[in-house]
């Protein structure tokens, strides 16, 4: 055990012996967690380690099967989300849970708006208090704007202002930087420092190690729903944390593979869309991994979705093999052998309310049926094949996909597409929000697929991933192709310059 720095103060919040099970899944078993005033505690663990579950226990959404929650040394129960909020625990989620149609001020004060005469809401007071809160966190936002008009970073600020408005003592930040730009991330760090100075206890959940070392004072590691270790950040190295997190050492080297690049599979020329992209052209070969790099909003996903038949290009042609392909719907794209693993897994990738086997076979229904009638035995056989190939972790194939961890949901989505025996697979940010272990597995798997002759397109915003995995990189900027880099030209510097539109250094 490492000794906490300074004379160990009493934690604001202490969880001990917490267990929580769901049908077929033991999400948490006997875990502990301590949060201290004025300190940032990083919660580290792979997908499926139990991070989201502990957040839900902390915010009163789940009731633990066993264990004690103490606030200031007194045992409490968070029977409802409201009880947790009253005890001063508030969470800022990955996808902010706010109301798009309400104003900034209403979002901050919903549920506890200042009251005036006759118990009516005192709008002027609410606006004034909102302004004060926003100023306190250094956010330059008009409280009268509706949330719809704001970007994701500003929404985070509103969520934080809301946390302050209920005088939260414990602030949980669940991957707050996942959707933010570089500049916005730095502003968030400053804000976290400010919250620390105000004496808040902060639980910071993140996959990014640089971030954790930059901002956290303490760490707690979970693995497979169990508590592994905790201590001060100053006493631990990145390697040790990774070791604790995965229970094995993972080297960050990308899989080596034979480069057997074959004939062109997909040729796109002059693809244009009135608002999203213009004059996109490239050729994708058999056995190739083609990387698409760019800043958020560069139009990469939009190009991919038009290749997959979601949106239709206004101009341009697409050839698959030697023949011209007209793709007007996703069904036609799949028929042509083009499949797409979307970035937004929860909304576009997985059907969470359906069991695993039905998710896997969804685009392949024609193959597991005769004359439109399903063959259950064939359906299970297909699902079994591909889930095994991806090393899926689940209690049974009949389990709803929504009960799986993010990494395993991604495996189901990839399995679903491989089962269609595609020629081209497009992966849009395939490792976003996935822990190191699953990430390496996805990379390994992509290399394997390319090795088998599949043509792979990978859209990614992570430079090491793009450079480590791709044979060739296309950089997009503002809807156009800004550069195509191969071989020794594939350097981080050139990628960033092309994406940002900065001229090559002489």
């Amino acid at each position, binding site marked *: 055990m490492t000794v906490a720095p300074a004379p160990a103060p009493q934690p604001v919040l202490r969880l001990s012996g917490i267990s929580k099970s769901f049908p077929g899944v033991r999400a948490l078993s006997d875990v502990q967690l301590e949060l201290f005033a004025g300190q940032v505690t990083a919660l580290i663990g792979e997908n499926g380690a139990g991070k989201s579950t502990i957040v839900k226990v902390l915010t009163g959404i789940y009731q633990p099967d066993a264990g004690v929650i103490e606030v200031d040394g007194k045992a409490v129960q968070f029977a409802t989300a409201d009880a947790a909020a009253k005890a001063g625990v508030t969470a800022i989620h990955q996808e902010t849970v706010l109301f798009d149609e309400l104003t900034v001020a209403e979002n901050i004060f919903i549920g506890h708006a200042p009251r005036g005469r006759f118990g009516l809401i005192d709008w002027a007071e609410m606006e004034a208090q909102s302004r004060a809160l926003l100023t306190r966190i250094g956010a330059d936002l008009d409280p009268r704007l509706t949330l719809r008009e704001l970007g994701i970073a500003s929404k985070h600020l509103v969520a934080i202002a809301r946390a302050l408005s209920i005088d939260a003592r414990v602030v949980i930040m669940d991957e707050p930087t996942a959707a933010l730009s570089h500049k916005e991330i730095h502003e968030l760090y400053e804000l976290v420092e400010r919250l620390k100075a105000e004496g808040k206890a902060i639980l910071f959940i993140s996959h990014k190690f640089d971030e954790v070392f930059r901002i956290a004072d303490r760490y707690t590691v979970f693995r497979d729903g169990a508590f592994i270790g905790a201590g001060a950040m100053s006493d631990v190295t990145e390697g040790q944390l990774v070791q604790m997190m995965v229970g094995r050492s993972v080297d960050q080297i990308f899989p080596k593979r034979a480069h057997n690049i074959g004939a062109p599979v997909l040729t796109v020329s002059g693809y244009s869309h009135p608002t999203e992209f213009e004059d996109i052209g490239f050729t994708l070969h058999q056995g190739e991994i083609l990387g698409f790099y760019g800043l958020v909003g560069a139009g990469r996903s939009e190009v991919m979705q038009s290749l997959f038949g979601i949106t239709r290009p206004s101009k341009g042609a697409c050839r698959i093999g030697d023949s011209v392909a007209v793709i007007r719907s996703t*069904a036609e794209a799949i028929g042509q052998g083009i499949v797409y693993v979307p970035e937004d897994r929860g909304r*576009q990738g997985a059907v969470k309310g359906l069991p695993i086997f039905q998710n896997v076979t969804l*685009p392949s229904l024609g193959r597991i049926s005769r004359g439109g009638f399903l063959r259950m035995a064939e359906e299970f056989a297909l699902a079994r094949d591909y889930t095994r190939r991806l090393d899926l972790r689940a209690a049974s194939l009949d389990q709803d996909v929504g009960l799986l961890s993010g990494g395993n949901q991604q495996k189901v989505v990839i399995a679903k597409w491989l089962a269609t025996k595609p020629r081209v697979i497009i992966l849009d940010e395939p490792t976003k929000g996935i822990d190191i272990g699953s990430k390496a597995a996805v990379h390994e798997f992509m290399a394997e697929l390319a090795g088998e002759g599949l043509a792979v397109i990978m859209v990614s915003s992570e430079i090491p991933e793009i450079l480590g995995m791709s044979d060739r990189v296309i950089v997009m900027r503002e809807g156009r192709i800004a550069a195509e880099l191969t071989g020794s030209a594939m350097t981080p510097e050139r990628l960033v310059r092309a994406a940002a539109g900065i001229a090559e250094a002489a």
Partner: protein
Amino acid sequence: MSDSTHHTARLIPDRLTSPLARALRSWEALLIVVAVAVFAINSFASPYFLNAWNLSDATFNFTEKAMIAFAMAMLIIAGEIDLSVASIIALASTAMGIAMTAGFDTPMLVAVGIGTGVLCGALNGFFVARLGLPSIVVTIGTMSLFRGISTIVLGDEAFTGYPKSFAWFGQGYVWWVFSFELVLFAVLAVGFYVLLHRTNFGRSVYAIGNNPTAALFSGIRVGRVRFILFLMTGLMSGIAAVCLTSRLGSTRPSIATGMELEVVTMVVLGGVNILGGSGTIPGVVLAAIIMGLVTFGFGLLNVPGIVMSIFLGLLLISVIAVPRLIRRWGK
């Protein structure tokens, strides 16, 4: 080192619970208990209940509604709804009345009735699946539209004097106590069971109801499936219109008023999630039988209709609330 990402593939079992265990815990099991209870209470309460011909008569209380309820169940599972079904019956029945007045005989009348239903369904489907309008708004609109056209045509009058051969659909018997409607109900129940639970189409319906975006991203032709579902609801309303008109032997302005809510009640009582995504045909069949038995039992006891609707309302709420309360208190 790199082998650290290669785990030995673990075998995942297909299912954890046996089909029997799941069946026992299902909504349908609860409905069977309710159905048996209603049957038993009716047998004690009235000496006339346990009689083959009386029971056969009782089936007319639910057969027409159930036909529509099967199609409605699929529509609701897919996350849509059709509130215009009763008005489709009115319009289809009116169309048959016009055709009858024009001198057409039974086969043509049936074709007109069913055809009108299909056209109405196509109109709903066009608005929802092609134009992307919300189905609840569209079908509240067409509910007024179809009923309005029917009322204008009929005024205070009624079409009567349907040909004798036409009466068979609503009054005829296939064998012994088994009426044409009852046999049709059974055939449709099996047909819809297979369609929803054993075909690609049925699977698409569940996928769309759970997550239409992911369904679209999985290559399912979401718009086409939705259109077909509205077409089917229209078709079933047309068939129900033929049966009902034949049984009543007339078309009056008040025909099938309020039936859309009874159909939706039947579907929800059958365990279909009103928000879409889940539900089964056996559940709807059981709900239909329960509603039919309750109506019939109350009829035998001379209970007024309004008490009947109060009871059905309570039954619906309690059947939905009780399992949820048990789960909450059980902890």
